[in-house]
């Protein structure tokens, strides 16, 4: 799929003018045949920074080895990888901040108040809050179990950041292009309940303990339907590779059409998985103060909240990838039914739309809007009802979804 957009045009200039392709000519390039935009940008950035440093060094100490080393292929690749990581994380972080802002603003409007107010449209409120939590004292109880108290929170935040970085934004913006990409993400998701359980236990606080147990039991029960639905999507696409699933949707139709039951179930289970309302009983403030996060104050609390939003945003990303055609513009998939007209429509009229990455993020924010609306209008569900729902409603629904997809594949299988 060729993207006709501004960034494509700019990056394409290299090959058009016969310049050396820095990626394909690079013997240490880590992504094989696939083009990786953040890596490329990192490489270009390092070419500028490292080149400037090397030039300066060469000016001061003519003929030294360090300036030669700074611009050799191996060094270029190492620093390009570092900058690649910074870029990927920065984009994920900003996307998460935007969803945070979206939530607070939409919640505010829904509740008949203004929401965040600092900066343009209240966007800088996140920054102000970050600074505030950063400057808070590091207060913790003397009786916490030090080792587990510190490490579990670091691991919860770490895995959440890792999950988000593992979600590809487009065919050219990814960390690994692995055949079991979805499984890696679900595996990372499944780690959190253990950390939360141990963290709740380590705080020497009854509220934390109950909150930790509740969170763990809820997340474990809701992972089962999630995995079944992911398996169903993989069955439709014939692959667990995220890129392949999106490509299959581009060829035929968005998977929300055959898997509508699955989409609704997935949406609810993902809400529970990222501990959002109405399944936020781990931090049910009316009875358990702040649940398993009770003893985490200051920046620790800020990071845990950020991790929650990272997981929420990531859930929306996975929903977009599985059900709404990922990074492709809408109606792209109609090519199959309507011929090339639609494709040429996109090429002729949608070229101004800058990047598939932005398409993906916009879709994810739209899905997040639905999650916010759910939070606006629902109360907190009780623990036993949540477990009942998970095992007795969503589990059968996910299996029903599998059956529907199987029938689809058997009888209307022509398009597959």
């Amino acid at each position, binding site marked *: 799929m060729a993207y006709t957009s501004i960034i494509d045009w700019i990056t394409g200039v290299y090959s058009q003018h016969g310049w050396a392709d820095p990626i394909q000519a690079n013997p240490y390039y880590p992504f094989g045949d696939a083009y990786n935009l953040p890596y490329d940008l990192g490489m270009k950035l390092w070419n500028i920074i490292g080149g400037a440093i090397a030039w300066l060094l060469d000016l001061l100490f003519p003929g030294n080895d360090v300036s030669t080393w700074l611009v050799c292929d191996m060094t270029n690749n190492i620093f390009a990888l570092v900058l690649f990581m910074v870029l990927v994380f920065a984009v994920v972080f900003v996307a998460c901040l935007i969803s945070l802002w979206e939530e607070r603003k939409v919640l505010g409007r829904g509740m*008949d108040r203004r929401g965040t107010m600092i900066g343009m449209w209240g966007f800088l409120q996140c920054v102000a809050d970050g600074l505030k939590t950063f400057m808070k004292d590091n207060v913790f109880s003397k009786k916490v179990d030090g080792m587990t108290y510190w490490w579990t929170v670091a691991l919860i935040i770490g895995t959440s950041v890792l999950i988000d970085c593992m979600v590809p934004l487009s065919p050219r913006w990814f960390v690994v292009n692995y055949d079991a990409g979805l499984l890696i993400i679900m595996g990372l998701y499944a780690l959190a309940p253990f950390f939360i359980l141990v963290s709740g236990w380590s705080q020497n606080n009854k*509220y934390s303990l109950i909150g930790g147990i509740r969170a763990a039991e809820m997340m474990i029960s809701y992972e089962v339907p999630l995995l079944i639905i992911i398996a169903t999507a993989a069955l439709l696409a014939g692959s667990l590779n995220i890129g392949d699933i999106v490509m299959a949707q581009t060829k035929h139709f968005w998977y929300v059409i055959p898997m509508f039951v699955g989409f609704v179930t997935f949406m609810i289970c993902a809400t529970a998985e990222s501990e959002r309302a109405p399944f936020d*009983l781990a931090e049910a403030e009316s009875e358990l103060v702040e649940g398993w996060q009770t003893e985490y104050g200051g920046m620790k609390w800020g990071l845990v909240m950020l991790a929650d939003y990272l997981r929420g945003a990531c859930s929306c990303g996975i929903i977009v990838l599985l059900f709404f055609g990922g990074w492709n513009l809408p109606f792209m998939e109609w090519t199959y039914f309507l011929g090339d007209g639609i494709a040429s429509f996109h090429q002729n009229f949608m070229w101004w739309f800058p990047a598939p990455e932005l398409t993906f993020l916009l879709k994810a924010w739209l899905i997040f809007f639905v999650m916010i609306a759910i939070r606006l*209008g629902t*109360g907190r569900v009780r*623990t036993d009802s949540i477990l009942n729902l998970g095992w007795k409603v969503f589990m059968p629904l996910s299996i029903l979804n599998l059956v529907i997809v199987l029938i689809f594949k058997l009888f209307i299988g022509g398009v597959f």
Partner: protein
Amino acid sequence: MTDEKKTQIPDAQAIAEGAEVTKEMVQEYTSQNMDMDKMWITMGPQHPFSHGLWTLKIQADGEIVTDADPIVGYLHRGWEKEAENRTYPKIIPMADRLCYASSMMYTHLYCMTCEKALGIEIPEKTKYIRVMADEINRLQSHLMWLAAVGTDLGNFTAFLWASREREFWMDMNVRLCGARMTTNYPRIGGVRNDVFDIDLDMNDEEKSRFMRDIVRCCDHFDKALWDIIALIDNNSTFISRMVGTGIITREQCANLGITGPAMRGTGVDFDVRRDDPYDGYDLVDFDVPVLSAGDSYARYMIRVEEMFQATRIIRQCVDKIRSLGRSAPYRLKVPSRIPAGKTYCRIEDCRGEAAMYLVSDGTDRPYRLKVRSAIFVNVSSSRDLLMGCRIADVPVIMAMIDMCLGETDR
């Protein structure tokens, strides 16, 4: 394990005589005597669910509550004793501080008790003004309760919507008496000011814009309350938390002394306003909602219906006050000394039956002034309400009691 085999720890006297207590003995004693299945959880006095300073200790077996123990008294300030050292008019602003949410009612109750002791009949217009002020106060209090229910059920939208509607009635309060919460409006023998003196229409002395705005507020509120009802009643996440939790029976109600919406939720058809009418309540027409389920949802429904009835009463009062006109008296001159005697007076507070018992000795100060607070009695029933429910239900059940610590601790 029999008692003989249990480890005994030497008592204080034995320790003083030289008996040794080792760590192992204490550990053994603890393991033998502790019920390890059950855990006491202390909620309060600083806890998000307790609206005010009080503690609820619950014993939990897993998620099931097996015992509960409410502890009040953090806000005790010797109200009744303080009242004995003040002249009768000076107790009026103190009565405001009994309950921040229903200050008008307690001041009304106090003034009514004094009038009964004096044996005077207040003017008719004052009766309607007091009833109107009471119902405005009831709306404020119930809306604050509705807001608190929203947060206790985990939804902030209901909180803010209810608070928004409450602001209209707060504004009416400000125009009526100059204050939002502690109103200081009723007086012994009348009220502080006539409603016709507020926001006079420049063209017509008989017309008060305040009265017009009260009716507008009623019109707006009757519609706006449906928004909040639609948010809560059409939503199974709210309903499932309320239906079938915190059930009490008629008999338990009678034994525990529960009054107010909680009592009417169990099928007891009794309301002081209707069955023992005071001031203008026998002159206005209203319904008393009664449900027989006895659960949290019944209490919720009754309070919501009481809000609709409150606007109905306010409208009637406004009509009656308008027909009586500006020239009707609104306050009597009363003597500063109350003759010796004992007086008991009760009203239907937002939370139940509030009463005052005045023992006067012929001076200008009360000999004794006893306050019966509805919440103090209702919260004592929390053990019966909470037994067998889940920890997650505790805030919801307690929210339906509508805690107010000012009158509980006095």
